[in-house]
Each structure stands twice: as C-alpha cells, then as structure tokens.
C-alpha cells in the first residue's frame, strides 16, 4: 500500500494541512464543499505508481486553520487563487487539477485561468450551479440549526446506489463532522458560481465525469458545460452509472481507472 504523508505548509500566513501520495507528474485534487481531503485517499493510493497526488484541506476545513477571524473563503475565484498559491508553494510546477462538485467547478475555473494547469478532470463539475438560495445558506450558521441533522437526508440522497459501503459511511461521517461556516462558504461559492463565459478559454485536455445518480449536478448541466469547452484540446465526458455526487469517494477504483485511461489518451 503506498504511503500517504500528511504535512503542514504556510499559505498566506495560515497553517494549511495537505496530504501527498506517489511519485510522478503532479495532480492537485480538491475536495467537495464543506468536507476535507481524506475523501481522495482511495484515488491517491491507486494513482500513486504513476502520479504524485497532492490534496489540501481548504482553509477552515479538516485540519487546516481558518483564515483570520475564523473566516472561510466564499467565492470561487478567491478559492481558485488560494489553490494557485498553495500549488505554487507545494508543487511549484505545472500540474493536472481534479476536483469534485465545487472542486469540479474549481478545476474548470483553474483550467481556464491559470497557465500552469496542464489538464483538468472535473467530477460532477459544471460552469453554472445556481442551486442554493441565500436563505438556505444563511441558515447554515444560524445558532438554532444543526446541519448534522438538517443536512443528512439531503447529502445522503446524493450518494449513488453503487457506492461502496466505505464510501457511503464516510459520506455520512462528512455530514456528522461538518463545520457549518466552512460548508456555508463553499456552498455560497458553489451557488454563485457562473463561469460560463470563461469556458472558451480552456485549451488543455478536459475529462468531465458524471455520476448518473447525482440529481444536484445533473447530466444536463455537465453537458451544457461540455458544449462551452470549444477550445479545449481534448474533451471527454464519461458517465458513471450507479454513482452519485461523490464518485471519487463512492468508487475510487472506477474513478482511478477512468483517470488513467484519460491521461493515456491525452498524453498527460
């Protein structure tokens, strides 16, 4: 079993936790909204023989310290810029970027705007996701709301029927251990994410993968994103039957195999 190493690095003066695994070309992997990098561990291990996978916990998530004033980032462009700073410090070279849900959107945004990105693997990623109201977002940090209760059914309805039991259990744990201000910031960024006009700027190879049982980031939304990737050197869209909103967590083996096939085709 390849070894996963956890470390801290200072990004903008705040301690940031990240994990790495493997050797080879770098892959930056971004976790989903309100969660943390452990959800990538299965994929990390399976890619380790060919790639060095680097997974940060975003500020205020997992073991990373929050920003000054116990704040978290709340805008997709701000998170992308923070990830760029992180990658410059930890990777220091060009890299492939992958992520899921908000992380999938961020992967596309980084591919459109940062020249050091050499390939994009976007899981459940879209360029337009107006799926949360301000009322719902404001309630997430209301003193009389417990997200671990109120969000459980919602979150688990996003997990696919073919998820591994481990993936399902860790999805549930993600809700039980939620940090409301982190979840709120991420979903504010997700709900307000509209990067449709930037998709024509993506020129690197892009893999869009879609868990077929995800009703939140729907197939139609991913397909609409694909249509706007008119200048990418290669675009592939892969359906993942039976998987939901968290494919990398639900079935790391299937996602890793899909990635390696794409990397071979794209010469990454």
């Amino acid at each position, binding site marked *: 079993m390849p070894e996963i190493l956890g470390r801290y690095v200072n990004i903008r003066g705040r301690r940031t936790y990240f994990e790495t695994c493997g050797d080879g070309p770098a892959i930056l992997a971004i976790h989903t909204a309100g969660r943390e990098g452990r959800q990538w561990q299965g994929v990390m291990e399976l890619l380790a023989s060919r790639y060095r996978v680097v997974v940060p916990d975003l500020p205020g998530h997992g073991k990373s310290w929050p920003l000054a004033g116990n704040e978290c980032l709340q805008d997709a462009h701000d998170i992308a810029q923070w990830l760029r700073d992180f990658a410059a410090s930890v990777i220091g070279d060009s890299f492939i970027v992958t992520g899921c849900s908000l992380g999938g959107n961020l992967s596309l945004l980084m591919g459109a705007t940062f020249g050091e990105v050499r390939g994009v693997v976007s899981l459940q990623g879209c360029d337009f*996701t*107006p*799926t*949360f*109201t301000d*009322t*719902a977002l404001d*309630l997430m940090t*209301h003193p*009389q*709301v417990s997200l671990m*209760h*109120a969000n*459980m*059914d*919602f979150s688990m*309805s996003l997990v696919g029927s073919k998820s591994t039991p481990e993936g399902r259990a860790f999805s549930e744990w993600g809700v039980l251990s939620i940090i409301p201000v982190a979840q709120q910031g991420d979903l504010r960024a997700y709900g307000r994410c509209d990067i449709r006009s930037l998709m024509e700027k993506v020129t690197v190879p892009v893999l869009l993968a879609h868990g077929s049982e995800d*009703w*939140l980031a*729907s197939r139609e939304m991913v397909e609409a994103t694909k249509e706007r990737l008119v200048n990418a050197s290669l675009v592939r869209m892969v359906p993942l039957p039976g998987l939901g909103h968290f494919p990398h967590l639900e079935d790391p083996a299937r996602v890793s195999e899909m990635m390696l096939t794409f990397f071979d085709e794209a010469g990454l």
Partner: protein
Amino acid sequence: MDISDGTFWDELVEAANGDPDLRRKCAHARACTFAVKIDDVQHMLEFHRGTLRRLETRDLTGARFSISGPKAEWQKVITGAVPYARAINVFHGRLKVEGDALAAMWTTPALWQLWRVSASLSGSMTHA
C-alpha cells in the same frame, strides 16, 4: 390514489404515526403546523410531540410554513420518484417552501421520513 384527497392524507397520517422513525424524528416538535398545497387544494398538518395529525381547517393562517406546487411534482415526492431535496431545490424543483424557514429546517428529517412512509404507502396501494 388521489394525493389531493383528504382520504389519502388521513391514511398517510395513520401510517406515519405507526412509523417509529418518524415518531422519533418529530419528537421535539411542538404544535408545528404546516400546509401542503397541491395545485389549489390545501391540507393542514401538524407535528406535535412525536405524532402527526391532519387538522380539519381551511384556515392556513396558523401554518408555520407551507409546501406548495403542482400535483405532478407532488406525485413524484409522495411516490419516492424524486428526493424531497430535489423537489424543493431552487434550480431543479417545482415545489416551494415558504414561511418560517427555521421551522421548516427543524422538521426537515421528519419530512424526509414522511415521504419515505408515503412512498411505502403508495407502493402498497399500487400493488394492492
């Protein structure tokens, strides 16, 4: 099965009160009334101390919140064809939750369980 009809809701209430999960999930509720609006037909329900009941009133002024939308969308929720969260999602859904957002949030687990009971009920009625 006509989901607009009071008979259906009476059967659903009876089934819900026989469901231990639902009783547990609304045990904290105190006179939490809410309106179900299916097209132009309305029913008033109340979670109270671990039970659900249907109120025989057309006056909805006492409802803490309401869930409203077209019958076709309600049909999907009640039969379990779509998750409740999708049906009320601002982008994907056609049901609206209005009123006291906190009350709606507090009863979210109970509401999810209620739609599980309704899916089970509608399934058994379909196959009967």
